[in-house]
């Protein structure tokens, strides 16, 4: 579904991503793991076209993404839950979800999708009139995921959904990811919580200092010695 071939990117003269190739097939949940500063967020930003790739090819369902303006990426069926949730703090939960359905094609299905999001996150329904900035961290993450789902995406990009959350809440978030994979969503998830993410993912890539160092099936990587040592603390 999504395919990156030898993509490089950076900020000004600083290169953060080197020659990265990666593939996500329909229905899969794919994880990208790696330490802080590895370039994981950069990778998702390149896919969403928030920053330009300096080299390489990106395609979504065989259509090139390389020159698509960032606000049109969503029309390719890609929804991005950014790092740190980035809700609109002074909009209500429901208005945040409405922003997720901004594109004309999504507006028609607003009511129906809203119901689906509320079914997935009953808490959001209770809090729908509350300002998003006043939600707890876990609720904010759910709202952010819900907002992305409102566009009816084929592929969901999740940037560290568990970061900064209490252990119980982390469990709940991964439960949601598992549920979404079960429902058939295609997910590309970036995480530092390697232990958990490898349990919900089908495949994973290890990104270090901007380069893919390893890739394979999630259950295999869990048994990989290097990963065990550096990321699972075993």
């Amino acid at each position, binding site marked *: 579904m999504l395919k990156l071939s030898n993509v490089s990117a950076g900020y000004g003269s600083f290169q953060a991503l080197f020659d990265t190739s990666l593939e996500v097939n329909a229905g899969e949940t794919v994880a990208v793991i790696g330490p802080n500063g590895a370039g994981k967020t950069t990778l998702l930003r390149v896919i969403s076209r*928030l920053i330009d790739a300096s080299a390489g090819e990106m395609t979504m369902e065989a259509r090139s993404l390389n020159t698509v303006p*960032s*606000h049109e990426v*969503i029309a390719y069926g890609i929804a991005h839950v950014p790092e740190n949730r*980035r809700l609109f703090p002074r*909009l209500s939960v429901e208005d945040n979800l409405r922003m997720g359905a*901004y594109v004309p094609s999504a507006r028609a299905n607003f009511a129906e999708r809203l119901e689906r999001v509320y079914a997935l996150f009953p808490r959001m329904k209770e809090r729908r009139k509350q300002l998003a900035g006043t939600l707890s961290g876990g609720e904010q993450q759910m709202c952010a995921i819900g907002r992305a789902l409102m566009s009816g995406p084929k592929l969901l990009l999740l940037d560290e959904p568990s970061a900064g959350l209490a252990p119980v809440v982390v469990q709940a978030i991964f439960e949601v990811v598992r549920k979404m994979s079960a429902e058939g969503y295609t997910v590309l998830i970036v995480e530092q919580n390697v232990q958990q993410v490898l349990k919900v993912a089908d495949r994973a890539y290890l990104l270090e200092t901007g380069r893919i160092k390893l890739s394979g099936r999630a259950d295999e990587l869990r048994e990989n010695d290097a990963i065990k040592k550096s990321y699972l603390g075993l």
Partner: protein
Amino acid sequence: MQVFDIFLLEAVVNGILLGGILALLALGLNLVFGVIDVVWICYAELIMLGMYAVYYGHNVFGWPLWLALVFGVAVVAVLGALLHQFVIRPVLAAEPINQLLVTGGVLFFLQAVATLAFGIEFKNIGIRLPQLSVGEMYLSVARLIAFLVALAGMIGMYLFLTRSYLGTAIRAISQDRAIMPLMGVNPNRIFLITSALGGGLAGLAACLLVLQYDIHPAIGLTFGPITFMVCVMGGLGNMIGGFIAAFIFAQFISVGGFFLHIEWGYVIAFVFFIGMMFWRPQGILGSK
């Protein structure tokens, strides 16, 4: 026994009506600031051009008044969009103060263009609305209309911002501009629309002012500063705050002008403004 002075009451009521105009003046500026984070110092000059547009439509081209008024609104809306595209957009990443100053340059430019194009004589659309006598008071019909239009404008704006996708996006973009593309929103398009809307509101204000005042190239200077004060005191970008501030200012001007001279009314209002800034720099409704 003369408990209250009927003329003082008249001043108070006229102050309330003046508040309507100030509120309308503040509305567009607040919208633009709230969304784009830029103060259009040349806002009053846009209104001035709107007044000329109405004058030309009605008195030079001989159109019916309503058409001239619509024309006035449309002209300023277009000017607002042009201002954004050609002046604000290039400096969006620059220092905030440069953004303020560049519109100050536009102020000079528009004033000069108006002088060049329309001359320095006073122009008048030749329509004077009557005074309305209520009991022993005389109230300006033009101000009454302005008050009602301002009220309608506020309500319309509120509904637009809270009930529509576009309005929601306009509120959202001021909170997080960088992720708007992830919602499928082209930020520049929203900015352009907002600027056109802000311009349209300025045009609406122009339509009401042209019923009461003569037009000349420097007229913007007479109500530009008061508009900024209203916006800042209400909390820049806070439309409800601006609305309330408009009525407070209007009372100072109207009642102050009743006891002293009209300039003293303004002086008191401005001094009050400066004092308020120190007491509540974030505006009357601001928190923190």
